[in-house]
């Protein structure tokens, strides 16, 4: 402050202006970056706290996909006799389950961000987006563990059975995996925050989401390959599902089976970007006042 001829010069630059929620579209990503340490803390918390006082600890991450694989094996291979693109069924299911689990757990956990964390949100400010982001990040850890199991299984079958499960994946297609995971993360996050933004005042949608995710799995080629669908109309319906090309591509990258369809993949990426953008806009509008209605 400096004084000049009796006038006091006041610095009018403010760091922060708190205003009523505006209709302008502003997403504060700079703040999210500033709080990146917190994101990491939440990931650590989720991982540490989940298996406290269990004997098997993180091994539980392996047991769940293994059991699901066994059930799928019995139901879809032995009873329903659905073909698996010439791949050993165990690997076929494991691959599908691994990538599907990542999507569904991201979506389920982010879709109630506001309601589940109202306690913290009502007491302290930090960019609300940190929480859904931390969910997506901590699920990557889980995904990594399950992915490791998948790799071990692929190698095991590769060595023991004489290349009878079809073409092994080419190394160049492995580069696809991180991209697929990223797109999956974007889809799970985008849909999740759209739902969480829509459920702060009226909870109706939360009732729907639980079983909608389960049903969505059957509209995605998780337990069957795209190639078995003979009905062209049905096929075009399923290819509207942005998850379908991703699951197929993941299987292609890990097992060398199925197809990689660039246009389908492009559709998924585009869908993800649009969903994420809409989600971010809705989320940043709702986060300012949701405490009053949640």
């Amino acid at each position, binding site marked *: *402050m400096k004084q000049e001829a009796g006038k006091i010069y*006041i*610095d009018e*630059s*403010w*760091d*922060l*202006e*708190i*205003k*009523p*929620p505006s*209709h302008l579209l502003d997403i504060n990503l700079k703040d999210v970056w500033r*709080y990146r*340490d*917190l994101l*990491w*803390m*939440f990931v*650590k*918390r989720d991982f*540490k*706290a989940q298996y*406290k*006082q269990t004997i098997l600890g993180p091994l539980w991450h392996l047991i769940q996909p293994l059991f699901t694989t066994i059930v799928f094996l019995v139901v879809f291979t032995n009873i329903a006799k659905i073909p698996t693109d010439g791949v050993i069924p165990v690997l076929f299911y494991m691959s599908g389950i691994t990538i599907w689990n990542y999507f569904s757990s991201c979506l389920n956990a982010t879709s109630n961000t506001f309601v589940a964390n109202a*306690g*913290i*949100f*009502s*007491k*302290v*400010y*930090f960019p609300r987006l940190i929480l859904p982001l931390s969910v997506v990040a901590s699920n990557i850890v889980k995904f990594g563990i399950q992915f490791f199991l998948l790799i071990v299984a692929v190698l095991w079958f590769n060595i023991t059975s004489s290349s009878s499960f079809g073409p092994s994946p080419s190394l160049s297609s492995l580069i696809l995996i991180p991209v697929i995971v990223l797109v999956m993360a974007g889809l799970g996050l985008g849909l999740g925050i759209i739902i969480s933004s829509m459920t702060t*005042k*009226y909870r109706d949608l939360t009732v729907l989401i639980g079983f909608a995710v389960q049903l969505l799995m059957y509209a995605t080629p998780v337990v069957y390959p795209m190639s078995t669908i003979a009905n062209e109309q049905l096929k075009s319906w399923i290819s509207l599902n942005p998850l379908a090309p991703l699951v197929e591509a993941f299987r292609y990258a890990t097992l060398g089976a199925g197809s990689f369809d660039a246009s389908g993949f492009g559709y998924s990426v585009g869908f993800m970007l649009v969903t994420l953008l809409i989600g971010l806009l809705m989320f940043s509008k709702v986060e*300012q*006042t949701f*405490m*009053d*209605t949640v």
Partner: protein
Amino acid sequence: MATVIKVENLSKQYRLGQVGTGTIRHDFNRWWHSVRGKEDPYLKIGEANDRTRKGKSEYVWALKDINVEVREGEVLGIIGRNGAGKSTLLKILSRTTAPTTGSAKIKGRVSSLLEVGTGFHPELSGRDNIFLNGAILGMTRREIQRKFDEIVDFADVERYIDTPVKRYSSGMYVRLAFAVAAHLEPEILIVDEVLAVGDVEFQKKCLGKMNDVSVNQGRTVLFVSHQMDAIRRLCNQIAVLENGSLMCLGNTDEGINHYLKGNSGSTAKRSWADNLVKPGNEYVTLEEVSVCNSRNELVETVFTHEEVVIKIIYRLKKRNFKYIHGFNLFNSNGVHILSSHDTAFAKSKKSLDNGCYEATVLIPANFLAEGLHMVGVAIMSYNPFMIHIEETEVASFTAVDDDGSKIINARGLYGGKIPGIVRPLLEWETKKII
């Protein structure tokens, strides 16, 4: 010094009742207005937020047109009754909710402590929770690492630092939580009554830390509390809120007196005409309480060298009970100076008829200290023991020294401030012994 917080015409509206199918009509109406570029129709109909009265409108203003400026290094105390809007104001300033209209501009990093231990996870160890809680409050990992030993030391939990916090005693839990918060280094700290926790020793430590933060480190603090002692010790400016409006913004004494007087009706005489708000029950109701001087004149200001007369008028509505009446005296810090009841009346065997009774009590001259005094009234009965009326602040008066030359009081010739909650004129005897 520069202004670091500037609150302009800040208002916050809440809707009462439940969210359900009924609210969707309002939401639709609001949306329809905004589509046509019109003002929100529900902003006009809000009522002042007085929770004791039944209102007609579903919408209330928890805050209405608040204007406050806080300068750097200032400690602003925010006081007011429950529901006056203190917490809403802090919530808006700490960005956990947005205002309905108006704005607040802030310079510098803000940390808010609306609760201690926000985000503590019971399964995690004390160490993990320090990092987690610190990060939630806005510290970076490096900052926490730098202060880790200091935090553990402040909380006195070194031995338990690797034990899950769910095994902590509640005192330890709170100490750890406050320790993290106390080591924040924001330019502006917002604190909401978190000092009401922990044992006395720890409370002292907390107040000391708060003082340190504001005085030695020159940070700005916003502090909500009902403890007038703490407010008086820490704050140098006070904002008094009442039903969502800012009633008074001034120095500490002014603010606290305003709040306490506002609470007690600021009158030497208080009577209740409306049966709904009259203190009491089906046995007794309080009719009137008044403060007079020795000449039986109603006064708001009394001289310390004069007697003070307090009159309590009440109505008995049930017979065959042994009633007993008394009064309490508090000073402007909320310190309970004395409590007295009518012992002679309690001893009498006579059963009282229904009707109005007037009890008078005389506070001797040269007994009270200077300042605002609040009168509380209690009426009980024995066998069985029941408290019918217990009003803490029904009337108030201010005691002042008269500095006329012939007046005899405990001040004597001294002109400065005399501490103490009472100031009786005691008899001294001094003689030369050697």
